[in-house]
């Protein structure tokens, strides 16, 4: 092991080492001032973020081909670091109010973050497996962090049982791929599969299917989405915000690298199943979201639908598909973070959490800025120009049409129209209805900064779409294949 190898995983390593040091540092921080730990975590994440531009342009693999650093993984690192940094800002007041301002929260978050970043770096399926676990295990604990609140504990147990079940599928799939191809390194797999078909193609296909199931659970794609609404609803809202935006980005980072680059020679085999998953997720997510009266649950179903949109890009394949997926992940992550920031702001008081849509009535008059943030976020999730969501969907649709999946592109448009039913309802509730909820919302500048940054990014990604696509394309060109 040399420094050269370590540099291929700079950002995840900073997070893991930072988390470990933070555990020690936290011992010296008195109980009442745990926000110091939060700021230390914020500094670690900024350091990881700073490593991204410093390394931009590299394209190397390290640790005997286990991991790679290229524009693709660096983009994912940067995106995840931004999400995590904003999430830390959101936790300050909320965790205090919910009584979960404990020092271990932030090291666990950093460990999860390092696992998520590793998903984009992994060029070996065994590293993908370890990274999935490294992001999941701290998240199980974070979901249950608000114990002894029953809903938090139940959310953690449910996430844990289904997550462990999914890991079982993932690891058995990896075993079958190893049995069929004799390697689990993505670059070697590409080489092995490019030639004549291996004798054990049945084993290989079964393995690929199982890996897809295992990762499908992580990104909440239908029909593997059953856990999502309950887990999202029960977990502390700051954790939900982190899970919804960062886990999805990390999961898709791994899916992209495995399917679009490692298993690219098998594309005609996996394209149809992924397209079907995309269709199912879009339909289930959007239709069920229509019936929700709780904003947190609604966003959970919306996140299933968005997994479907992103899978459309994966099914489209090729560099165009990869670029559209990365763009959409960035826009979705920041947009949903803005929505969660508003929910966190409304639930950082003394009263119990309440995410019922009724509590948002009259928000437009009471708190115009918060209402504006939520409104922009809803419009972007719906895909209205000039927000990021519009351009995201545009790129996904053109990638899908470009590779002959016109029917899927049409399904994407139709389900997006359906989704107007619930996204617009939120906006109507805020601006058109008079609210009875007059609970004061105390200002908190880190939270306001995070919410505004996410909103500005949502609008900014839309306006600056072409330079960002340019950046993503440079990243994808440098990918280690």
């Amino acid at each position, binding site marked *: 092991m040399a420094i050269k190898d370590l540099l291929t995983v700079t950002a995840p390593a900073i997070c893991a080492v930072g988390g470990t040091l933070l555990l020690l540092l936290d011992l010296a921080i008195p109980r009442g001032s745990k926000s110091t730990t939060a700021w230390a975590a914020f500094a670690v994440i900024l350091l990881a973020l700073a490593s991204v531009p410093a390394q931009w342009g590299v394209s190397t693999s390290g*640790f005997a081909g286990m991991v790679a650093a290229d524009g693709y993984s660096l983009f994912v690192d940067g995106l995840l670091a931004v999400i995590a940094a904003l999430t830390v800002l959101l936790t300050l007041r909320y965790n205090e109010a919910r009584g979960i301002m404990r020092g271990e929260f932030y090291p*666990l978050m950093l*460990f999860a973050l390092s696992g998520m970043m590793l998903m984009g770096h992994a060029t070996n399926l065994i*590293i993908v497996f370890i990274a999935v676990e490294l992001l999941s295990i701290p998240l199980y*604990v974070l979901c249950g962090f608000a114990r002894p609140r029953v809903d938090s504990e139940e959310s953690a147990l449910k996430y844990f049982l289904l997550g462990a079940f999914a890991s079982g599928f993932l690891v058995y799939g990896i075993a079958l791929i190893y049995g069929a191809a004799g390697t689990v390194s993505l670059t070697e797999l590409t080489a092995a599969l490019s030639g004549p078909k291996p004798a054990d193609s049945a084993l290989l296909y079964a393995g690929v299917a199982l890996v897809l199931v295992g990762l499908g659970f992580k990104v909440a794609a239908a029909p593997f989405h059953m856990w999502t609404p309950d887990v999202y609803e029960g977990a502390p809202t700051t954790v939900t915000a982190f899970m919804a935006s960062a886990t999805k980005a990390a999961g898709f980072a791994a899916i992209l690298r495995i399917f679009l680059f490692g298993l690219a020679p098998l594309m005609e085999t996996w394209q149809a199943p992924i397209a079907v998953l995309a269709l199912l997720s879009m339909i289930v997510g959007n239709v069920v979201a229509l019936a929700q009266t709780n904003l947190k649950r609604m966003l959970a179903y919306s996140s299933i639908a968005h997994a479907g949109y992103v899978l459309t890009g994966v099914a489209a394949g090729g560099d165009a598909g990869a670029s559209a997926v990365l763009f959409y992940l960035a826009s979705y992550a920041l947009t949903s973070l803005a929505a969660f920031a508003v929910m966190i702001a409304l639930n950082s008081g003394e009263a119990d959490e309440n995410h019922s849509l009724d509590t948002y009535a009259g928000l437009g008059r009471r708190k115009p800025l918060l209402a504006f943030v939520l409104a922009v976020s809803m419009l972007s999730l719906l895909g209205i120009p000039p927000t990021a969501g519009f351009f995201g969907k545009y790129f996904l649709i053109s990638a899908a049409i470009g590779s002959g999946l016109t029917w899927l592109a049409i399904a994407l448009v139709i389900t997006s129209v359906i989704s107007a039913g619930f996204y617009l309802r939120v906006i109507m509730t805020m601006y058109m209805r008079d609210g009875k909820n007059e609970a004061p919302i105390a200002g908190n500048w880190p939270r306001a900064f995070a919410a505004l940054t996410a909103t500005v990014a949502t609008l900014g990604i839309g306006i600056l779409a072409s330079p960002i696509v340019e950046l993503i394309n440079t990243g994808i060109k440098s990918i280690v294949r």
Partner: protein
Amino acid sequence: MNELLVYILLGAVSVVAALGLLFSRNAIYAALFLVLNFGVAAVFYLLMNAPFLAVIQISVYAGAIMVLFVFVIMLLGAEQLPAADTGVRIKASRFVIIAGVAVLVASVMYALLTQSSGEAATYASDPAAIGVMLYTQYAFPFEAVSVLLLAAMVGAVVLTTRDAK
């Protein structure tokens, strides 16, 4: 031929133990069935040129993980399971997953029956060889897993300590 007989016998024990886990009404019996299954797996590791893994299997799985399971079951007093807790109540929606797994098993069987390859190859698998590989080629996953263990340890402590408020 005798060798195959040993395999079939052990395989039968393994499947019976797994079914015991599936149908047992007593959580402790279920845990012991699982220990038996893991023990048979250790024997298979020995037969498959993996002596070191066989030892690890016994010490980590049977010795640590399953003891922890049995300990928790007894701590919680959850030995006796309700009568309804047997393998008969299956929600209709779950048939999809079951069908999928059936297809999987069938395709694995098909692949194994149609291929003639799979002749045993020999290779060094002593602890020294494993150690060298662990610290060279597999140094990175080794480090990553150590972070994972730390995270799990912190998590377990966070979840179980009572707050001194």
